């Protein structure tokens, strides 16, 4: 009984912290429509800052607290709002998600730059020296008591703010319809700034309260709040009382698990994964949603042309060959992952880009693929690839079953929970047997080796041959993705993304469609993982955990998740540019960790993705046959010269990169010359008969409004 009480109190105190963080999350969600994945990271930064002021510089507690909670945190919230979030109006949930995930990645990087992760930082609880209060047979510390009181105050205060004050109502109104809020006279900018300031203060409060209880480490602290997410979801991201109840359920469950879970070699991982599993369960308990009606967003991904797709695939394959033949062995190892990561990123295109279903567990599927390859692909047996695709597709299909009920942010959280459950628990399991039939030893509690692939008697055991193989596989899969987008299935996915209700009333089987696209995407990711595995030759769970996977997701969206090019963009920046920058500028390499974060943060400015602009930029080349042919010839020529060793790699790379730029300029000039051939306005009707278009042009040029002219010219 004492033990029970003790763990109840521990559980309640934890619950209170979760409640504070979850309330902040719900506040920003209901008032700005953004589910802030970085809420925990803000708390983490605040905890570090507080440590700096209070324990490193020795400021008095109240001063340090006031400075962090009421000055720095709100200012930081306002900064986030002004610089980042303001650009996110009318963007899809995916875009918003990526921005906040990027913020999370960037902030973890930032904290590691400022506060060396290898130094330990002691952190005292509040009133650490005061005697705990006795409650019956057990005791409660002052810190625990304060935490619980704070949580209750926050819950009451927020409810009052959002439902009983005008600014609170205006916050919610601005989420519904921002232009209309302005027509009512509200100032949405001010309103959202206020919301972010408070949300950020709440995150800071939670961070400072939780920091003494765990090691002060950036990654752990930022993700600790998976439990807070579960509480927020319990409250449907809306109801503060329910959030509170959810926090208690989650916190106490965790408390009892740590008290009563039996000691057993299979279970320690379960305890680590329990917040994620709880989150998953809470998600499944959500009531059945109504079918989603139409959602509007700014993103638009144009239909890829057949010609463009073939050109893209050819280019990718050619690039693979060029890289394989020009790069040194160590470089090939460093940059070799571009295309395998690319395949994993590509698996997101049909799922996220077309169907609008967010998945944060693609890298986990890749991990499963790699395991399959390791265990079934002895001596590089290619049948293992087939198995990798089939098994991951089957698991993907199973994951999709709850997905019918989840969408948007809920689905993102569900898949993240799945990823965490895998990397904290399943992937760390020791050997076990299934029905006594086979023994499974996933990662052998460390790492497992993967044999290089053998295909048609050829073993892909050099980095160069792997590069060629992977680039061709990527190219083929990109053709598959384009074929899907152009075909029946692709249209269906886009339709479902727009309005599930309309699809159902047309007789579409929603579940079947979702399961299919999930399976397809998981299969692709599994294939990518298997190939990545055989390329790395030895893989461990760390290669496939959630945090490693987030930048792939984020950068693919930054590139433009509606097209294969976006996936390639993501992979190239992650597995190509970042290592390249690190090699070129070793002195700043530690700062590079925040780059993916920065890239994602800028997404709001261009939600259609970077590739969209690139494509527009290079369009003139494709439009002019002469320039296109010339470009290809020059590139091939350069390659030949390089192969003859007449130029070195740097010169070659530089020339290769400038060629398309020159081509764009040339194509534009050519076009302009041709455009000059168009009959000047003054001469129309003289040298040629008038057309309606001409009248319209004339109107536009002269700025005329009278329609008499229009009618007269026509008559």
């Amino acid at each position, binding site marked *: 009984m004492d033990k029970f009480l003790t763990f109840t109190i521990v559980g309640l105190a934890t619950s209170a912290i979760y409640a504070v963080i979850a309330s902040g999350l719900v506040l920003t969600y209901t008032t700005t429509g953004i589910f802030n994945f970085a809420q925990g990271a803000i708390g983490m930064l605040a905890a570090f800052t507080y440590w700096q002021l209070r324990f490193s510089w020795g400021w008095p507690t109240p001063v340090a607290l006031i400075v962090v909670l009421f000055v720095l945190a709100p200012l930081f919230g306002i900064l986030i709002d002004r610089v980042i979030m303001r650009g996110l109006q009318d963007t899809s949930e995916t875009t918003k998600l990526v921005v906040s995930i990027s913020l999370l990645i960037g902030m973890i990087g930032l904290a590691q730059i400022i506060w060396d992760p290898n130094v330990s930082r002691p952190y005292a609880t509040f009133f650490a020296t005061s005697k705990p209060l006795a409650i019956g047979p057990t005791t409660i510390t002052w810190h625990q008591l304060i935490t619980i009181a704070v949580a209750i105050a926050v819950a009451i205060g927020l409810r009052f703010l959002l439902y009983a004050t005008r600014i609170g109502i205006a916050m919610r109104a601005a989420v519904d319809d921002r232009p209309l809020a302005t027509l009512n006279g509200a100032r949405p900018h001010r309103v959202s700034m206020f919301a972010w300031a408070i949300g950020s203060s709440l995150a800071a409060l939670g961070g400072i309260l939780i920091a003494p209880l765990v090691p002060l480490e950036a990654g752990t602290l930022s993700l600790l709040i998976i439990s807070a997410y579960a509480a927020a979801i319990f409250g449907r991201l809306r109801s503060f009382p329910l959030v509170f109840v959810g926090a208690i359920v989650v916190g106490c469950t965790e408390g009892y698990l740590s008290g009563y879970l039996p000691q057993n070699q299979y279970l320690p991982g379960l305890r680590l994964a329990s917040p994620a599993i709880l989150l998953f369960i809470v998600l499944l308990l959500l009531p059945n949603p*109504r079918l989603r*009606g139409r959602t509007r967003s700014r993103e638009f991904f144009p239909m890829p042309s057949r010609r463009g797709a073939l050109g893209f695939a050819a280019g990718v394959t050619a690039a693979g060959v060029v890289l394989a033949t020009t790069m040194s062995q160590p470089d090939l190892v460093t940059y070799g992952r571009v295309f395998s990561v690319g395949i994993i990123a590509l698996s997101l295109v049909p799922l996220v880009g077309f169907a609008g279903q967010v998945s944060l567990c693609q890298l986990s599927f890749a991990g499963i693929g790699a395991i399959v390859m390791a265990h079934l692909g002895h001596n590089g047996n290619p049948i293992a690839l087939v198995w990798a695709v089939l098994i991951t597709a089957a698991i993907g299909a199973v994951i999709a079953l709850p997905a019918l009920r989840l969408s948007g942010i809920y689905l993102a959280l569900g898949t993240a929970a799945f990823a965490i459950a895998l990397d904290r628990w399943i992937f760390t399991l020791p050997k076990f047997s299934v029905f006594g039939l086979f023994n499974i030893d996933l990662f052998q509690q460390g790492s497992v080796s993967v044999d290089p692939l053998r295909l048609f008697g050829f073993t892909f055991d050099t980095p160069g041959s792997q590069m060629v193989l992977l680039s061709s596989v990527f190219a083929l899969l990109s053709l598959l993705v384009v074929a899907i987008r152009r075909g029946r299935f692709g249209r*269906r996915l*886009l339709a479902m993304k727009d309005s599930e209700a*309309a699809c*159902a*009333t*047309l*007789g579409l089987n929603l579940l079947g469609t979702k399961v299919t696209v999930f399976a397809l995407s998981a299969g692709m990711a599994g294939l990518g993982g298997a190939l990545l595995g055989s390329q790395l030759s030895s893989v461990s769970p760390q290669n496939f955990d959630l945090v490693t996977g987030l930048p792939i997701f984020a950068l693919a969206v930054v590139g433009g998740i509606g097209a294969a090019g976006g996936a390639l963009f993501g992979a190239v920046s992650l597995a190509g540019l970042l290592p390249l920058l690190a090699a070129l500028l070793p002195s700043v390499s530690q700062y590079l960790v925040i780059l993916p974060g920065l890239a994602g943060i800028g997404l709001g400015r261009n939600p259609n993705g970077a590739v969209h602009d690139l494509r527009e930029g290079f369009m003139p080349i494709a439009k002019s046959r002469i320039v296109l042919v010339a470009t290809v010839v020059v590139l091939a020529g350069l390659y030949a010269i390089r192969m003859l060793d007449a130029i070195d790699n740097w010169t070659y790379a530089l020339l290769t990169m400038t060629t398309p730029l020159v081509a764009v300029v040339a194509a534009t000039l050519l076009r302009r010359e041709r455009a000059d051939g168009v009959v000047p306005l003054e001469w129309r009707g003289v040298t040629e008969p008038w057309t309606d278009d001409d009248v319209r042009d004339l109107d536009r040029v002269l700025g005329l409004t009278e329609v008499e002219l229009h009618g007269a010219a026509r008559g």
Partner: protein
Amino acid sequence: MAQLAVRGVTVRFGGNVALDGVDLDADPGMVTGLIGPNGAGKTTLFNVITGLIPLNSGSIQLNGAPMNDLSPTKRARRGLARTFQRLELFSLLSVRENIRVAADIRKGWARDGSDPAAVTEALIERIGLGAVADARVDALPTGQCRLVELGRSLATRPEVLLLDEPASGQDENETLAFGALLQELAAEGMAVVLVEHDVHLVMRVCHKVHVLDFGRIIAVGDPQQIQTNPAVVAAYLGTPG
């Protein structure tokens, strides 16, 4: 036996009774009007018939077979199609693709020899969307969006077609053409149910009109009878005519 038979349907939202024992028949070859003041429950009735919201009591039958336990998808496959008062178009797709999706979906479950591409082109032609077929629906004015939704629902070749304010947002010319199209569809044997506030349109094209008020059917009859029914005038039409 009517093609679509609604019997004693009751729907409550919390304490509010949105539909209270509603009966409605829609017969093949006829345009059945459903009119009533705002908030009478017309859209709710469509939502119940298509299975998007559950009913508290009553039954819905298509060709004599009960549909109460079927999902929206299954009901669509039995031959039910609808449009939405608040447009539910696929904004990422062009006009042509919007219709094509529906034709493809139908081919997926009907497995008849129809050619979705041909069906799509024929519908674009028939509804008069040729000029905008490749435009994204987002850039179209509401009136044309309504037509795209109509085309999309026709692409599933429904037996019963439910139209929720299809003419709102259309100008007077478009409405004229639209009315003619509805009569044609009925003449081909479809059962059309029309919810609309444009009384002239309703009176011109409907064979039979149901009037809903506060969730109850207060009158059923031909347009002549409805226009002069004192209860309808008081609840809905205001000054007669």
